[in-house]
């Protein structure tokens, strides 16, 4: 009952400059830095042929495991050193961004898209549709992903799209379950009842009322998935069912360099740093996006 005046006070006192300037700068940095990292990585992967100093697949048996330029024994020819086949690590990291980012972003777009559609339909429409879809989700979630990935690799042959399909085939189920739960909560809310009283169709309610209100958890899960998918792709590379060599991906580079970690740490460290950067940036960016898209948090 007494919340009303407080809320009013909150909105009239929009923070402007002054006291909170420092915290505003900090707040902005937490999205400017990760956003820049993302933009740089995406530009890098698009323009890889122009940026990479060498052919990422060209081997040079006389220049194997050369250390990075800033370490004794390194040369400026290979800024980040070479791997066990004498390939330029920098060029491979640059080309690897292409594979890793596009696998990850494609898988997320597919799984989040399907999962959100199914979760909202299941939760809002309920009844038999819900019963059926949730059984499918149960099956998808209990199915061993690795087995499916291997089967697919055998059936389709290893390659970019095999990896995308293998990671998407089961990945949507988690989204569907999460979104269904949120939908169930929102469909019983007063504002959905009000929309029905206004005569809104189920379609409109799902699109205009449910969907915008499941965005918060969806964005969080999607941004966490950026790193997870890159790691999953490396796992598949490690098992030989990922993107086949010599095409570089960050995941396959990390696993290639594992055996040489004591003598040539740079082979897996640089792609590893890239994976870490993407995971971190994804999380920060997710937080920021969520705040931006929520009108209640937007102007704080």
């Amino acid at each position, binding site marked *: *009952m007494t919340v*009303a*005046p407080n*809320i009013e006070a909150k*909105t009239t006192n929009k923070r402007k400059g002054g006291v909170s300037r420092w915290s505003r700068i900090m707040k902005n940095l937490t999205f400017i830095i990760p956003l820049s990292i993302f933009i740089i990585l995406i530009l890098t992967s698009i323009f890889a042929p122009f940026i990479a100093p060498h052919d990422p697949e060209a081997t040079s048996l006389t220049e194997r495991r050369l250390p990075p330029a800033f370490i004794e024994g390194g040369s400026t020819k290979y800024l980040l050193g070479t791997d066990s086949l004498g390939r330029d690590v920098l060029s491979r990291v640059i080309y690897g961004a292409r594979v890793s980012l596009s696998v990850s972003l494609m898988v997320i777009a597919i799984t989040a898209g399907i999962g959100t559609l199914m979760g909202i339909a299941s939760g809002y429409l309920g009844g038999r549709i819900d019963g059926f879809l949730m059984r499918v989700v149960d099956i998808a979630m209990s199915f061993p992903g690795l087995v499916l990935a291997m089967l697919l690799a055998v059936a389709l042959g290893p390659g970019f799209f095999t990896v995308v399909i293998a990671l998407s085939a089961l990945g949507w189920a988690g989204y569907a379950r999460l979104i269904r739960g949120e939908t169930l909560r929102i469909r019983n809310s007063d504002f959905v009842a*009000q929309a029905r*009283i206004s005569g809104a169709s189920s379609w409109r309610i799902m699109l205009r009322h449910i969907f915008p209100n499941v965005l918060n958890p969806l964005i969080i899960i999607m941004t966490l998935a950026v790193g997870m998918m890159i790691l999953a792709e490396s796992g598949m590379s490690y098992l030989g069912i990922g993107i086949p060599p010599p095409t570089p991906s960050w995941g396959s580079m990390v696993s290639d360099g594992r055996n040489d970690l004591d003598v040539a740490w740079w082979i897996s460290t640089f792609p590893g740093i890239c994976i870490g950067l993407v995971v971190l940036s994804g999380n920060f960016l997710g937080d920021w996006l969520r705040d931006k898209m929520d009108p209640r948090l937007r102007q704080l």
Partner: protein
Amino acid sequence: MAEVLLEARDIVKHYPVTRGLLQRTVGWVRAVDGVSFTVEQGKTFSLVGESGAGKTTIAKAILLLERLTSGNILFEGKDVYKFSAAQLKTGYRPKVQSVQQNPWSSMNPRMRVRDIVGEPLFVNTKQPKKEVYDNVSKLLDQVGIGAEGMTRYPHEFSGGQRQRIAVARALALHPNLLVLDEPVSALDVSIRAQIMNLLKDLQTQFNLSYIVIAHNLATVRYMSHGVAIMYLGQLVEYGDTEELFKNPLHPYTRALISASQLTLPEDAKDGAKQIILTGEMPSPLNPPPGCRFHTRCAEAGELCSKEIPDMRQVGKNYVKCHHYK
């Protein structure tokens, strides 16, 4: 007498109580158990009762959010449940709108005010966006919210302002009937009168009919023409509001009136006898036999626990009590 707009005929709503893995039905919540009333054109009909009496269930049935177990709802003389989907869409839904109790949850937090108030227009008319927004700004004006609120979000408003916005949304389609489920009980006491005045003004301006739901009789006296007192899924007394206050018939009504007057201790003057309700309302899962109120009634006799009283006319109003024979 004014024309009857809506009539509830012996409406019943039982919710199943399920238990266990197989969702076996183990009982029924008799939320509404045979209620009849009429709402007249341009008048306010109030439903008053304690929490759990079944008031919201009736509102939901009228708004077609829940299907009745049995009974009929007649709108302009026609059975609403016999309407086709198309008839509902043009002949009922737009004419019966509502304002809910809680202005904090009745609006999508991710929509702007102009889209919230405009939603009934977007859904029911073919008006282009610009025309809808023009209408929204007029509606907001009518409820005392400036047009600068159009592009803002609900959280930027206070409870009272939000309730005004909710009223604007309810008026968008020029309805005949508004169902107001405790429209002011979530608001600050100081703001309640403002909203009630607004509703009263709008009623005369547009010849609106209201169904007002409240658990406090004081709220109701100010704005209603007819009133029904509800207890455990049934009406115990109904009729003209002024008459009911002047000459309450049912012991439960008298208890409610005395409770609504008991605001400060010094109000309880020596003359006015205070009737204080003791105990809780019994569960609607298993309502008491006979008169449902007898377990808490100071005047209950032997008959009250055995036989269900009939609704009968006493003076101007109607009452369901064995003491009037």
